[in-house]
């Protein structure tokens, strides 16, 4: 059933083939050329992004536009919500099969690039990926070490959204700006006027960005490039204790209500009148609110110290390519299209944040909401400082832990003292591992 002759012939053939292949590889010393993409090659790419139905439709449109230009590249797009998206990527990273092109979050950029999971984009910059429309500081966002791993699609900044419809129902004026205490007092006013159906907002101390904002006002930061925290236990205690008042007097929406709304939140369920978050969240909020809601207020967050440069522009998301992709040129072509093309600007508007690429931004026909984001980012110019360094490895974990602890504080199932010690022990593990 197994002849020796045949086996021998097989081995001989294989050896011959190997020699020929080796000859090819060694002999043809091809000159280093700019990578280009063969427009006739049939290629299939996987694209993964996080978002919701609204964003998925936009991606569908963008891929259709991409296929008009590159009919030979089939793009299989999949999407998940943010936490599931990263759970999936972690398993894929372990198995070595990340999607070719990924929408990427700043907080995971260092971790993935330092572990050689992302493609070095430098060879594609200036040829397949146009760099002229991308300002230097935008390109710098995707650099870890000295290598570019991601291209920012867009930028965003922290802001305060308000719901004019609810404010009118409650009969309270828009928050005129002011200190954090002023904001808390305004929330109480809305809640009292809301008569049990409307709340002024949620517990903002559950978001690490609000803490960061205060730290930056004091000239400090969350984490340095080397992973040193810019705060101690006392400072975190102070932050969480600063809002015991509205947690206890019923100003904020009851946490049990919020839990029942998951995956939506109090703000996009029309129960709270304000929310501190990234300025590109407006479209998602309006989609969640549904009919009867056509506009939102977007104003600067409360001030900790006058004149401080506490806000900053960060990439709302980037595009990266898996280091193991079989079609780096095609993948780079897709990234260039998603970032730079006028079509993508026109389709996405500010759904992913204010387009970072000048060509995309110029083509973006800004709907009122997008225009509002653009105006907002212009209005906070004097509060914008330098962006913090690319987040430390494990930042995503700490951000989530902060949020979970915030939920427990809002429930009242944990004391501030325990909350602080929990966060620090988590930080200990993350920073030393």
């Amino acid at each position: 059933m197994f002849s020796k002759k045949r086996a021998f012939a097989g081995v001989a053939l294989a050896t011959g083939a190997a020699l020929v292949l080796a000859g090819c590889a060694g002999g043809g010393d091809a000159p280093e050329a700019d990578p280009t993409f063969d427009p006739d090659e049939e290629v299939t790419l996987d694209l993964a992004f996080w978002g919701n139905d609204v964003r998925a439709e936009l991606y569908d449109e963008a891929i259709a536009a991409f296929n008009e230009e590159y009919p030979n590249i089939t793009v299989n797009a999949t999407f998940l919500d943010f936490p599931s998206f990263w759970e999936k990527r972690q398993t894929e990273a372990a198995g070595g099969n990340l999607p070719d092109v990924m929408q990427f979050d700043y907080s995971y950029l260092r971790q993935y690039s330092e572990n050689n999971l992302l493609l070095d984009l430098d060879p594609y910059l200036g040829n397949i990926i146009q760099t002229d429309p991308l300002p230097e500081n935008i390109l710098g966002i995707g650099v870890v070490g000295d290598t570019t791993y991601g291209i920012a699609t867009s930028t965003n900044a922290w802001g305060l959204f308000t719901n004019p419809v609810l404010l009118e129902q409650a009969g309270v004026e828009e928050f005129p700006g002011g200190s954090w205490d002023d904001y808390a007092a305004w929330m109480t006013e809305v809640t009292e006027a809301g008569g049990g159906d409307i709340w002024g907002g949620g517990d903002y101390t559950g978001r690490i960005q609000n803490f960061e904002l205060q730290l930056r006002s004091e000239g400090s930061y969350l984490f340095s490039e080397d992973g040193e925290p810019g705060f101690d236990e006392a400072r975190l205690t102070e932050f969480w204790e600063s809002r015991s008042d509205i947690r206890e007097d019923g100003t904020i929406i009851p946490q049990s209500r919020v839990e029942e709304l998951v995956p939506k939140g109090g703000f996009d369920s029309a129960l709270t009148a304000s929310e501190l978050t990234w300025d590109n969240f407006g479209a998602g909020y309006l989609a969640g609110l549904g009919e009867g809601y056509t506009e939102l207020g977007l104003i600067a967050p409360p001030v900790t110290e006058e004149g401080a440069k506490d806000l900053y522009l960060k990439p709302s998301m980037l595009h990266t390519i898996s280091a193991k992709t079989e079609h780096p040129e095609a993948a780079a072509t897709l990234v260039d299209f998603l970032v730079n093309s006028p079509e993508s600007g026109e389709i996405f508007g500010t759904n992913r944040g204010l387009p970072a690429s000048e060509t995309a931004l110029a083509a973006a026909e800004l709907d009122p909401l997008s225009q509002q984001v653009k105006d907002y980012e212009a209005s906070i110019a004097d509060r914008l400082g330098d962006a913090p360094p690319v987040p430390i490895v494990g930042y995503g974990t700490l951000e989530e832990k902060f949020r979970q602890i915030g939920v427990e504080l809002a429930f009242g199932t944990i004391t501030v003292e325990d909350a602080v010690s929990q966060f620090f022990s988590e930080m200990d593990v993350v920073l030393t591992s």
Partner: protein
Amino acid sequence: MSTTATRVIVTGKKSSRGPLSGRGKGEQDLHRPGQRSRQVKESLAGYGFLIPWLVGFFGLTLVPMAYSLYLSFTNYNIFSPPKWIGLDNYVRMFTNDPSFMQSAQITLIYVFIGTPITLLAALLIAMLLNYRDKGAGFYRSAFYAPSLIGGSVSVAIVWRAMFAGDGPVDTTLSFFGINLGGWFGNPALVLPAMILLSVWQFGATMVIFLAGLKQIPKELYEAAEMDGANAWHRFRAVTIPMLSPVIFFNLLLGLIGAFQVFASAYIISNGSGGPAGMTNFITLYLYKRGFSDGQMGYASAIAWVLLVVVAIIAFILFRTQRSWVHYAGDNR
């Protein structure tokens, strides 16, 4: 696990004769050279057929388990090679991780309250179904159905909707003046709701009880009745002892299964283990540690603690068996 272990032992005993040579007279023939080579050939064929199973057992069970035990002593973030840290993961779990302690606590409550209630409900319904045969088929299927679809996404979503603030359960309760405002958003009520969900899936347990009840000889009841035993006495003196092996089996499987609750908690809390960590059962917690936080070493350590706890509980149950489980033909 125990069946696997038994099988290994059996194979080991037989292997001196070659696994497939159960012919009886093979041993006498061993000194004949021709027979001997045939014997070897048969053994080889036997092992050949065993290979898929062996590959599966080593590749999918033993090696991964050993590797996870190794990982539990390391710091491993999936991306870079594991770093040996000795017992640090275990120390951290018991001294420096309140989330783990909470997780362990709610898991134990879930297991030790949920399982007995499930068993009771299953036994009760099984006895009802055993009492009369009319329409038994329909009711059996109806009660069994939830446990078929129990782990599914849709059921957890329906359950979530039913116990929501404006869902049917709360609406009904508020009709009687009880206002709870939703179960799954309330840290105090979410655990009871989870236990209810598990009790509702008693179907498989019930079917096994039913089979056990059918095995009890009618004569025993008749004899008891002759002696003047009432229904309660008959239940105490006949049903329970005769059923005790089945009760033991269901109790063991129920406890082990309850320790592994995951899907319903994941869906109901949207993967967060909330509200306030009250659905953060141990398997969900270790999953999140491993896959969202990239702390695979720590997650492995938690998995091993879970394994040891389940093993201890199973061991204790087996030891107490002697005092309350009666097997047919037993002299005790």
